[in-house]
């Protein structure tokens, strides 16, 4: 296993712990950044779709295990997000690459997650996307942009 993968594995663990603990303190209204998604996108951009979706599946599964929602739901949405991030690698200009990929992958991630989550319920998917997903994703992108700025030199091979 390459050093990069090990470093990212540690980063995933760190992000996971932060997600479970610290993120609750920086919650604005109901919006909170998805640190695991940020690390996942950064990892998939580096390693491509195969690694990206595998990491997404495992991280999602981990999230499912500790959560109370449908088991497999986070695994599925993070798998797709990881795959998309890997596929989009190199498709944008270098400066905007991370943020645009995070935006697209995040949208796909949230859409799948909330679509399945709201199936058969009386929630409106539209209002959920407008009032929850988009602000949440914006928050994730802002935090992601800041973290990536620090994370990237650390992860340089």
């Amino acid at each position, binding site marked *: 296993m390459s050093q990069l993968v090990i470093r990212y594995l540690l980063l995933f663990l760190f992000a996971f712990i932060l997600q479970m603990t610290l993120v609750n303190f920086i919650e604005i209204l109901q919006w909170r950044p998805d640190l695991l998604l940020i690390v996942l996108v950064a990892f998939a951009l580096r390693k491509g*779709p*195969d690694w990206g*979706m*595998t990491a*997404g*599946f495992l991280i*999602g*599964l981990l999230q*499912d295990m500790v959560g109370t*929602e*449908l*088991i*497999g*739901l986070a*695994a*599925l949405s993070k*798998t*797709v997000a990881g*795959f998309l991030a890997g596929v989009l690698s190199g498709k944008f200009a270098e400066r905007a690459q991370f943020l645009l990929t995070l935006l697209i992958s995040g949208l796909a991630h949230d859409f799948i997650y909330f679509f*399945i*989550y*709201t*199936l*058969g*319920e009386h929630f409106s998917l539209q209002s959920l996307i407008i009032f929850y997903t988009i602000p949440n994703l914006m928050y994730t992108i802002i935090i992601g942009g800041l973290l990536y700025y620090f994370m990237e030199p650390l992860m340089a091979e």
Partner: protein
Amino acid sequence: MKKVFGIFSQRRTVFLLGFYVVFSLFLMTLNDPYQLRGIRIAVLQTMSWMHQIRDHVNLVKNLKEENQQLRKKLLEKSLENQQMQESMLENIRLHRMLKFKEESNYSLIAAKVIGYGQEPTIRSLILDVGSADSVEKNQPVITDLGLVGKSLVVEKNQSIVQILMDRNSLVSARLQKSREVGVVGWSGNLWLDLNYISREVVVEPGEVVLTSGLSRIYPAGIKIGIVAEVRENEYELFKQIKIKPAVDFDRLEEVFVIKTPDSLKSREGID
């Protein structure tokens, strides 16, 4: 086996994505029933929509077929209705004619109008009765409404009738009130002319004009029409009287031919 691995390695990403997605979905099915409720409802809703779409397609198809059948039935019923109406009207006409025949003092031969004469010089009708039915030349033809004309050409099973609206037709006529006698001929349009009525005679529109009986062909008292217009000219001896025919010659369907009584056959006079 190598081939399978070959395909897998070529399309590893797709297979991997498929595997993770399927596995994630499989994991979702392992959740307890409450958590699965939403997915179950969604599946049921999807199935329901599909059934609705299928039912809708079937409904449209059935409606089209039903519509075609109903249109066909409607057409059939419409034709049936027309035939029934026609029969009903014919029944009314025949009933009226029968009553007329029963009440009439003449010996009548019932006939159907089967056509209009094509001769350019004579305005005529073709009847479905002829010499085989005892029809003879110069017999009056009437309906319950009034005089139609006279038989002109008689074949075995058909005869041609010269109608009053022919330019060669002349009938001795009498005004019902004044009892004055004149001659009725065609005016060249929709009217008949009553000629040779003196200016001294008082004639008013609405007065009935009948056959005079001064004829070898027409018995007295058959209605020809009613006076529609009366004109006078101080330089002329006679009135100009227009008569509206009692019979609508364009709508004739059934008529009667009057068998000429022997007493009339020997009489002299105009038609």
